[in-house]
């Protein structure tokens, strides 16, 4: 069995490791369903269209140099690479069939630098980025 506690997901955006600021992350792999129903069909028919995945991530807003806010601001308006790994190690994260590496290009088209939260909360951002490439799945390689 290779189940894992969801408390150590790794995320790099534009090669910058933002893992320690994540409070929630979801990579949703999906593709368009293109209707191909023709005469004579008794049910709708669909075939695979273009991939249309998304990466949703909640982050604590850290304004320190090269951290969350600076990195996202520098990437704002561009498509940069996101690396995601289910279980991240402090260094040399082993990538394997039970801990694969996902690589995808994401369009940084929304930011909430003055984040959500009230007086009793740390400021945070809840962001959903559209993927502008297919999601590459690899059982070897390196994360950090």
């Amino acid at each position: 069995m290779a189940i894992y506690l969801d408390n150590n997901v790794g995320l790099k955006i534009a090669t910058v490791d933002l893992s320690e600021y994540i409070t929630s992350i979801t990579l949703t792999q999906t593709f368009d369903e293109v209707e191909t129903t023709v005469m004579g069909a008794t049910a709708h028919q669909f075939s695979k269209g273009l991939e249309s995945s998304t990466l949703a991530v909640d982050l604590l807003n850290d304004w320190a140099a090269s951290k969350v806010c600076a990195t996202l601001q520098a990437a704002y308006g561009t498509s940069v690479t996101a690396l995601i790994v289910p279980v991240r190690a402090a260094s040399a994260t082993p990538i394997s069939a039970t801990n694969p590496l996902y690589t995808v290009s994401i369009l940084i088209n929304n930011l909430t630098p003055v984040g959500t939260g009230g007086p009793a909360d740390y400021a945070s951002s809840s962001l959903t980025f559209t993927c502008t490439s297919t999601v590459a799945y690899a059982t070897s390689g390196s994360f950090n």
Partner: protein
Amino acid sequence: MPYPTEADLEVLKKLGLAAPDVKPTTKKDEE
């Protein structure tokens, strides 16, 4: 998929960071 991309390097440049030598291997690279 090349990594880091030009856009990634541009972000690093803005942050004043050097490009890392870590590169993920994709299925395509392995073929």
